[in-house]
């Protein structure tokens, strides 16, 4: 609650929260809010030559190359972005936290092996790996989310590793140990709670990265597959028309930037409030 109060004092964070809230509402109530079905191809949705319509009275943001309403597709696309953003990033943060904390707390050979794997993943060209993985498994929304999680956990693991190590060397941990607390008790009662601020911050910032990666994979055609609308695959489907119908790229593009920006703004504000580097505390 204190965190929320502090967040609401920052203009940019409030702006970000409003966007995120709007996106959630749009995603939940997409069928009610959207003026048309995202997949309906309108007979009057194309010009006589068969080109997409520009923004006009009937179709607020115009139509795409198949004569579907762009606004409705963008509204339904918010579901894809949010579901993948939250699920993929949640899994990534979970894996990253697990690997980082285990490696940092138990060290020894488990720690070495885990951190060498992390180093290996750092050297992998992330997008290339994601594309190969997405090509191996037939992409559905959940597969795309898992692929992104498998690529994105690495940063979290490194941060958690460093923080766990510095925490476990602090005096209050020594004190607990000398009082006879077990290793597991120290880990769950005294180490993990101190890592939560960082997890919240990187959990928020990571959604932004995830939204962008999903859009990129879908743009390359290996992410979420049409006809399920995703902001990335709307651009993928329509890019041949970019010279005559730039709104087909601009509107979904704006949607991606706005959502990613919102999570970045909130995440950055949280970082300043929670100060996870613990500069102010040690």
């Amino acid at each position, binding site marked *: 609650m204190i965190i929320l109060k502090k967040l609401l004092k920052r203009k*940019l964070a409030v702006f970000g929260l409003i966007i995120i809230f709007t996106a959630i509402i749009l995603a939940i109530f997409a069928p009610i809010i959207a003026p048309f079905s995202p997949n309906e191809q309108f007979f009057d949705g194309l010009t006589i030559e068969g080109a997409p319509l520009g923004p006009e009275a009937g179709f607020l943001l115009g139509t795409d190359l198949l004569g579907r309403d762009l606004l409705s597709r963008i509204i339904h696309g918010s579901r894809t972005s949010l579901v993948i953003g939250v699920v993929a990033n949640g899994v990534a943060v979970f894996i990253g936290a697990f690997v980082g904390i285990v490696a940092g707390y138990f060290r020894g050979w488990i720690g070495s092996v885990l951190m*060498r794997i992390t*180093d*290996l993943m*750092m*050297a*992998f*060209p*992330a*997008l*290339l*790996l994601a*594309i*190969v*993985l997405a*090509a*191996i498994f037939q992409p559905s929304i959940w597969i795309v989310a898992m692929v992104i999680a498998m690529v994105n956990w690495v940063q979290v693991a490194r941060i958690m590793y460093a923080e766990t190590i510095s925490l476990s060397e602090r005096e209050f941990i020594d004190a607990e140990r000398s009082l006879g607390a077990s290793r597991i008790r120290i880990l769950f009662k005294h180490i993990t709670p101190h890592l939560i601020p960082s997890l919240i911050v990187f959990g928020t910032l990571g959604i*932004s990265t995830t939204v*962008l990666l999903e*859009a*990129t994979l879908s*743009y*390359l055609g*290996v992410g979420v597959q049409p006809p399920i609308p995703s902001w*990335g695959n709307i*651009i993928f489907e329509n*890019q041949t028309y*970019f*010279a005559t119908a*730039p709104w087909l*790229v*601009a509107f*979904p*593009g704006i949607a*991606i*930037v706005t959502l*990613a*920006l919102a999570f*970045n*703004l909130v995440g*950055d504000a949280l970082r300043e409030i929670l100060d996870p580097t613990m500069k102010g505390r040690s």
Partner: protein
Amino acid sequence: MIGFLSRRVFESALILIGITFITFLLLFVLPADPVRQIAGRSATPEVIANIRHQLGLDLPFYQQYWRYFVNLLQGDFGRSYLQKSEVAELIKARLPASLLLMAAGIFAELLIGLAMGIISSLRRGGKTDNILMVVSFVGVSAPQFAVGILMLYFFAVKLAWFPIGGYGTWQHLVLPALTMGFMGAGWYSRMMRSSMLNVLEQDFIRTAKAKGLGKLKVIMRHAVPNAILPIIAMIGIDIGLFVSGMIVVESVFGWPGIGQLAWQAIQRVDIPIIMGVTLVAAFFIVIGNFIADVISIFVDPRIKLK
């Protein structure tokens, strides 16, 4: 120092070997069958078995990997399944274009990012600072493919200042380089800002001011060079982002580099090319990280050589 360097070289080599193994494993379990693609739909089972044997794909996993690895050490990346040419040749032919794009992208992101960061730090807390920092956030939130396509629309289609795509003159390079640098500029402006704020508080800046140097001289001679060093090290770490950017930007602008090569190979399941490009990219990432480590030691000798 020498001990540290040799250990880092050894670690880097291990990482590269690990990457050959993982990539090989991933592509080994790939359900798509390259033999069917080469042979075509109407091929008889005998023809398919024959091709499989020729490519060595009927061997068990460890033998295939070992063969690949030994060839790799001799600089042989294998042959493309579909283009019938040496992967090493294909990559060699396309690498200069990618390196040019990468260099231009780094130049663009530093030029824009550092300028924004310096101005911001000098106007700390003011309106300019706030606006620039919001702009930097928009930069890191913008997907490269959309930025690229919209740049094409405005600067190539509408204004016709630059060609719509392709490769050759410096005009071809401007838009792809800006697209590559756009996201990085956002990060670098934020890092440069905080690095500058750090330096501006130091005693030697006060001394420089006290001895009567003009404001511009203090900033350009004393503050900026000291603030820039830690940021230069970051470029090495960013090579991975550039490799990802290359695939997207090269496919938007039709830039004939290794990103486009990889992208086409993935669509055709041309495994030797995918392996080759992944390894070359990983090689650059490892080198980049290595250089970043070395630079940070020179920048800040307090870093322990552990």
